[in-house]
């Protein structure tokens, strides 16, 4: 892949929008800094950006070790969610009865308040990674199921008819036609899942853990280390943005025929 293609794939070619994002972030940080510095808020409640930046540097070892814990939970959780969602969407695609039977439960599963569920899971499954994976998978698999099913449904019925006149077996139609057609949907779902997975990880860690960014956040507030708590949130956000970017890149490379940049009208 040429350097130019790689830049295009990363979305870097549109320099103007890249700079635009930077300007927005800097403007928000500037306003925040001014507000705190001019006495608008108690730094124990709202630390100034420079204090958060200071904590990001001073606590880098602490943040990094806790980040690794959360990152492992999120990545594994999304993998579990993706596998479960693909299996469920495939089954629901094949059997209309099951599709109808599963929908209410699926929607219901998304209304479970995670702060209530997470402590129960800790009691049930212990302090290890398992209850975290369950929470993350639970909050993130739904979007993947919905977008994958939409991908299956979008396959042209005429294409299926054509394959039938070629005597293509049903199993092969699924593997060679329907599954690749649904891949862009899987990516869309996974990109949405990444965002909620990070939030799910924090709730799961707060319910019972001895490491992770959510744990660090929960520990820092009562210790009045507000800047460190904010620093943990910043690391979490940057992580989610990076995962989203990685998925976008993977999407461009694996399903280039379907790539539609989010937020671009062209």
């Amino acid at each position, binding site marked *: 892949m040429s350097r130019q293609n790689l830049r295009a794939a990363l979305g870097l070619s549109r320099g103007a929008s890249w700079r635009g994002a930077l300007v927005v972030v800097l403007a928000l940080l500037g306003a925040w800094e001014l507000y705190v510095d001019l006495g608008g808020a108690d730094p124990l409640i709202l630390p100034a950006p420079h204090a958060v930046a200071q904590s990001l540097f001073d606590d880098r070892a602490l943040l990094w070790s806790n980040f690794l814990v959360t990152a492992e939970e999120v990545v594994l959780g999304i993998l579990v969610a993706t596998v479960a969602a693909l299996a469920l969407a495939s089954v629901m695609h094949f059997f209309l009865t099951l599709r109808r039977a599963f929908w209410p439960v699926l929607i219901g599963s998304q209304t479970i308040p995670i702060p209530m569920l997470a402590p129960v899971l800790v009691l049930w499954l212990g302090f290890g990674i398992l209850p975290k994976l369950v929470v993350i998978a639970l909050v993130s698999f739904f979007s993947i199921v919905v977008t994958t099913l939409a991908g299956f449904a979008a396959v042209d019925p005429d294409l299926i008819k*054509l394959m039938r*006149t070629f*005597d293509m077996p049903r199993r092969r139609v699924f593997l060679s036609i329907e599954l690749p057609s649904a891949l862009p949907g899987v990516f869309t779902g996974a990109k949405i899942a990444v965002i909620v997975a990070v939030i799910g990880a924090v709730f799961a860690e707060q319910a019972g853990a001895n490491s992770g960014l959510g744990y660090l956040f929960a520990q820092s507030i009562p210790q009045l280390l507000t800047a460190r708590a904010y620093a943990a949130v910043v690391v979490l956000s940057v992580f989610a943005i990076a995962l989203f970017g990685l998925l976008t890149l993977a999407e461009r490379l694996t399903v280039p*025929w379907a790539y539609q940049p989010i937020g671009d009208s062209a």
Partner: protein
Amino acid sequence: MIKAPAPPAGEQRKQGGVCVEHVSRTFASRRGEVRALADVSLHAAPGEIVAVVGPSGCGKTTLLELICGLQAADSGTVTSAPAALMPQRDLLLPWLSAVDNAALALRARGMARDEARAAAAPWLERFGLTGFERSRPAELSGGMRQRVSFLRSLLAGKPVLALDEPFAALDAITRAEMQSWLAAVLASEPRTVVLVTHDVEEAVVLGDRVLVMSARPGRVVRDVEVAVARPRRRTDPQVVALREQVLEALGMPA
């Protein structure tokens, strides 16, 4: 014009012909029942090209799906040798290269990828697609895509080809080129062809016979034999005369 009686249905099937007899087909729709076909008969001898023209909604696509075994008739009989469809839209898979798209029907039967590619490659060359074997559909022109689509159906290896308005989506110049191209291909690779089209000129240039269908419910109102030597020119007086005859049967002033 006196025609020899068609051979019995079983005979047609064995030799690669198509025999549709007194077929009717009705669909249930929200507005009640829609009669798509009413007592339609169509016979295509092995190697014959039968063009079917008619107004929109006269059940032409239904007719092809009956021949391909994708639908069952409500009444009447459809006896056809195995048929492969070629759709109006090329429906190429965007993630496959031209050669892999062309080889799809071979892959459908379980042929290994390399073997299927090797079998399809010489055809791409014959079809004027040299140098585009590895291109994705998005990189091909409309005419090229349609040629790959035709090749895909041809390589299905069925004695009958059911072509559903194969060039309707192309611009006029490309369409004319593709019609001449298809005539040449079918001259060297004879198949029994049922060609459904809106384009009267296309029907007369390509068909051995032209069946004219009425508006819904579709029925055959005229069977025109095109006894013009090939290759045919659009401007040939015989072609022009037959075109007028078909247009007249469609109820349009020529």
